[in-house]
């Protein structure tokens, strides 16, 4: 294979950066480069230390291992630190979350200020401010989070940067944990900012470091886009020698930084001129490479799709794009001319394919490869089979067509954890038969059986706004309108719609499920958690006080482990005219610490198998198949039970009892409260 090597303007970082070579963080760069020259055999030398995940060698921040098996997100975190970034901000969202977590884990506090922001737009603004103050800064978000930051993102290239700004965006094709699958490559084109797409962890590391330099060179934020499989797959990374934290300061430049129309008109022109230069520069960048093999088939691809193409068509020529905006028109044309048939393999939208059509290059793509979901080596193979490039499989059936035992295996859906404090409010809402506008978080699982009491889920914070609409439209068949959302989601985007609800006098109830953490993404602190990402203490925002300040007259705080109180609170709130708020406060059972009370068991003599408890959907409650009675009895899996007492409270037979003797349910509830005191974060 021949790699086109071009020393391009992009490869030359600003002089400022080069003068600030890392001294304090000096790694054994000689050793690194020697080991990396051994190529694939470097790790076979027993002297090369390896690791899975980033491991550090003490306080000087040097990397202990030459070769680490890092996830894409870990590689981006390492790259950010090594690029001398002084700040990292973002909002948690799968598959982007781990970047900030790993920065917090591996960097010393003096090197990087890292913190979760209230939402993605706030993060983008914090990032732009830090940049103008001279810091290199990364802002991390999942694909739908970038929608929230769009307002600032669209104008950010007008203002430009001082320290480099990298917007790390992780798309989620296949919707492993998302409400939609949008292709954010279009956002880079829309905003007119350079877009880098790594296809493995080494590239994730390299591109991250290069992105900071590019951002400063071109005076614009740069988007670094991954997909789930790049972010959450581990492959080898060899780091290069790190830079120290960028030095800089805020310099006043109102014509550039204040987007009054008069200034913005000038800056828009500058933006367009830069775009023209970027297009020229794109022809020479080292991020793109042409791999000429057989001339019969050529494939234009990027990101994870590149890996699939290399596996499925090892002999095909490949134009691998690392910079997917702007695209190298001339190089693509010359590549197209060298091959007989040209294909585009890309996940989701025909972004590259459309660009090729505009360039006047004939290529085939979406007619063979799906426009939705994740690609896989198998789908790429099937696509090339239907295109006639590969022969169809020998049998009538493909491998997937054979009858496998998988078809007889039942599905296993995600569930609320055993002891989840969200179960009780949903049980009550199900009973009230309310029209429930839901939101995004663990509690979206309240829409699934058996809780089955959520009617909508659109986007972050949408529950309250949609409830206003539902209540104002009024056609709910007399059923009460309730919005349900979590604490982190409320702070993220729930406050403006609550203002709307109060101001418009909507007749509705808002249930805020406050478990003190952003639980869905693995337990990240938020402004109502008195904790920082590094584990320090932080001032806590008071959610009930916010509601009262907005003007909600009825704000009730209740413990969701107390079923009766929760039921009364929600029933009373629903009965009230105007906006009422119920805040259910109970720390998440899983994070930041696992909370475990006395485990419960089922007295099989008293249990009559009514299964009311199973309506909680608690994974600890299972059918006991061992008893020779019909109907069967319920059993509690002691390994899973958290001792939340909720099932014991709702059992009509009083058949669910604590294993520790003589503890009444109310005593148990209070014992959980006191035992989890230190972890309750001051509630």
């Amino acid at each position, binding site marked *: 294979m021949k790699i086109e090597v071009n020393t391009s303007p992009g490869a030359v970082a600003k002089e400022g950066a080069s003068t600030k070579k890392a001294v304090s963080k000096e790694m054994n760069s000689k050793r690194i480069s020697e080991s990396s020259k051994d190529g694939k055999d470097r790790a076979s030398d027993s002297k090369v230390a390896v690791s899975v995940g980033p491991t550090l060698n003490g306080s000087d921040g040097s990397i202990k291992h030459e070769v680490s098996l890092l996830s894409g997100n870990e590689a981006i975190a390492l790259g950010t630190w090594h690029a001398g970034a002084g700040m990292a901000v973002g909002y948690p969202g799968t598959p982007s979350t781990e970047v900030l977590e790993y920065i917090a884990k591996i960097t010393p506090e003096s090197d990087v200020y890292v913190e979760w922001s209230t939402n993605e737009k706030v993060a983008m603004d914090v990032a732009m401010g830090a940049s103008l103050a001279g810091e290199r800064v990364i802002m991390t978000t999942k694909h739908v989070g970038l929608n929230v930051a769009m307002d600032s993102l669209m104008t950010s290239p007008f203002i430009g940067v001082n320290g480099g700004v990298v917007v790390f965006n992780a798309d989620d094709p296949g919707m492993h944990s998302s409400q939609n699958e949008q292709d954010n490559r279009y956002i880079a084109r829309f905003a007119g900012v350079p877009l880098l797409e790594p296809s493995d962890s080494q590239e994730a590391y390299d591109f991250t470091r290069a992105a900071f330099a590019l951002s400063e060179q071109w005076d614009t934020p740069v988007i670094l886009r991954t997909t789930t499989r790049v972010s959450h797959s581990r492959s080898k990374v060899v780091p290069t020698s790190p830079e120290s934290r960028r030095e800089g300061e805020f310099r006043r430049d109102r014509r550039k930084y204040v987007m009054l129309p008069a200034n913005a008109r000038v800056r828009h022109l500058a933006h367009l001129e830069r775009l023209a230069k970027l297009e020229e520069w794109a022809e020479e960048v080292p991020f793109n490479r042409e791999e000429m093999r057989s001339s019969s088939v050529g494939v234009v691809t990027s990101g994870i799709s590149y890996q699939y193409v290399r596996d499925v068509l090892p002999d095909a020529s490949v134009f691998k794009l690392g910079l997917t905006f702007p695209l190298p028109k001339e190089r693509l044309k010359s590549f197209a001319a060298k091959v007989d048939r040209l294909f585009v393999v890309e996940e989701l939208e025909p972004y590259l394919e459309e660009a090729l059509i505009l360039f006047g290059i004939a290529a085939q793509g979406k007619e063979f490869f799906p426009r939705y979901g994740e690609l896989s080596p198998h789908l790429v193979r099937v696509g090339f089979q239907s295109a006639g490039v590969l022969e169809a499989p020998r049998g009538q059936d493909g491998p997937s067509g054979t009858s496998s035992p*998988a078809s007889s295996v039942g599905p296993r859906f995600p569930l609320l954890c055993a002891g989840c404090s969200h179960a009780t409010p949903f049980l009550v809402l199900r009973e009230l038969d309310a029209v429930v506008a839901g939101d995004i978080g663990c509690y979206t699982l309240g829409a699934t059986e058996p809780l089955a009491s959520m009617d909508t889920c659109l986007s972050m914070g949408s529950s309250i706004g949609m409830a206003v609409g539902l209540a104002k439209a009024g056609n709910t068949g007399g059923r009460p309108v309730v919005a349900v959302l979590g604490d982190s989601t409320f702070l993220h985007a729930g406050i403006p719609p609550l203002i709307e609800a109060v101001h418009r006098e909507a007749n509705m109830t808002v249930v805020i499920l406050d478990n003190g953490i952003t639980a869905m993404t693995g337990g990240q602190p938020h402004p109502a958690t008195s904790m920082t990402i590094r584990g320090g203490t932080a001032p806590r925002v008071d959610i009930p006080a916010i509601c009262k300040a907005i003007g909600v007259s009825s704000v009730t705080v209740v413990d969701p482990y107390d079923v009766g109180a929760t039921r009364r609170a929600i029933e009373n709130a629903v009965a009230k005219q105007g906006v009422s708020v119920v805040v259910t406060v109970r720390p998440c059972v899983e994070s930041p610490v696992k909370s475990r009370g006395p485990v419960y068991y089922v007295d099989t003599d008293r249990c009559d198998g009514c299964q009311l408890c199973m309506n909680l959907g608690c994974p600890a409650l299972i059918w006991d198949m061992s008893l020779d009675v019909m109907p069967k009895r319920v059993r509690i899996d002691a390994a899973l039970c958290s001792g939340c007492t909720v099932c014991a409270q709702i059992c009509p037979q009083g058949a669910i009892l604590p294993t520790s003797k003589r503890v009444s349910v109310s005593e148990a509830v209070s014992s959980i409260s006191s035992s989890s005191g230190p972890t309750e974060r001051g509630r």
Partner: protein
Amino acid sequence: MTKATDRFTDPSPDQTAQPPDNSLASSAEPAPARSSKERNPLGELKGNMVLAGVGGQGIITASNTISFACMQAGLDVKKSEVHGMSQRGGTVVSHLRFGPEVHSVMLEPEQAEWILGFEWEEGLRFLEYLKPGGVAFVSTERRIPPTAQADRRGGRVDYALESAPPDGVVPIDTYAIAGDAALERPAIAQTVLLGALSVEMGLPVEIWKEAIAATVPPKTVEANLVAFENGRSWYKRWKQDTAGSKGQTVLQANGSKKSYESIPGSGGGKAVDASRTTIEAWRGGIPKVEIVRDWCKGCNICVAVCPERVLSLDRFDIAVASNPDRCTGCGLCARLCPDMAIEIWLDVPTHLGASTE
């Protein structure tokens, strides 16, 4: 000039190195005997596997151990992980590939030499990835999801409880084999699977032990090493005892059950009893709800308490069974009705032609 951009001007061997061929898809079974190469006797090993189970079973740790072992052997490794919503009690699956050079981390169907099932049904779920002749090491630990217990009348469980293991599946009672430590820390039981895998994968035992020591929590290293050794020796014996298996580990539906149980020192591991059939669903009839309309005053208690939402109030505020098919016959409504207006009849013959008891 940053070092990061150096990498582009000075192409690293990462980018120039080409695999000798695309033989990953057609890789032969790994052979420990393949140590003729001078430079790195293990450098030509390659293989693919799927690790599957339920969140919290230590799947990521196990895949880290395997990755570490492969890296120590000088091999390229890639593996996929699962984060986010899929961890909430759902399936966790990781694809892991190693070899001289690995491109895609995701596998195609029938491409995996091995499957490691940390949970019985999850191990079976991904059998489509198993190559013909491959081996699936599947723990007999069962985690029955609540959704599989949605049938509210007879207690039918929608789960492959006792079905005969398909070809290529080695059922392993990991808890019994692992040793006592597994009772306190369930994740240790799964190291038995690594022990069994190590027999097939072709890496030296020392590398495995080093990898375990480097990747499991420091306090559990010893217990994990015991579980590893136990799993390794158990599987070696199992291979010997399954007759006529020349590298092909096929568990016959009935024949092998005996030999499986007769393995001495298998820690009393219970075999998957292939002869048992799936649990019979309760063929009881659908109970009948009878409501005396004249006695009902519409207090709504029965509507509120019914676990299955069988009842509702009609437009005259009288309780009616609006979803009679969902009644499980628990009798809660009848017992709580202050007006004794509800009667539940359990012995109604149904279309199934059976009655209760």
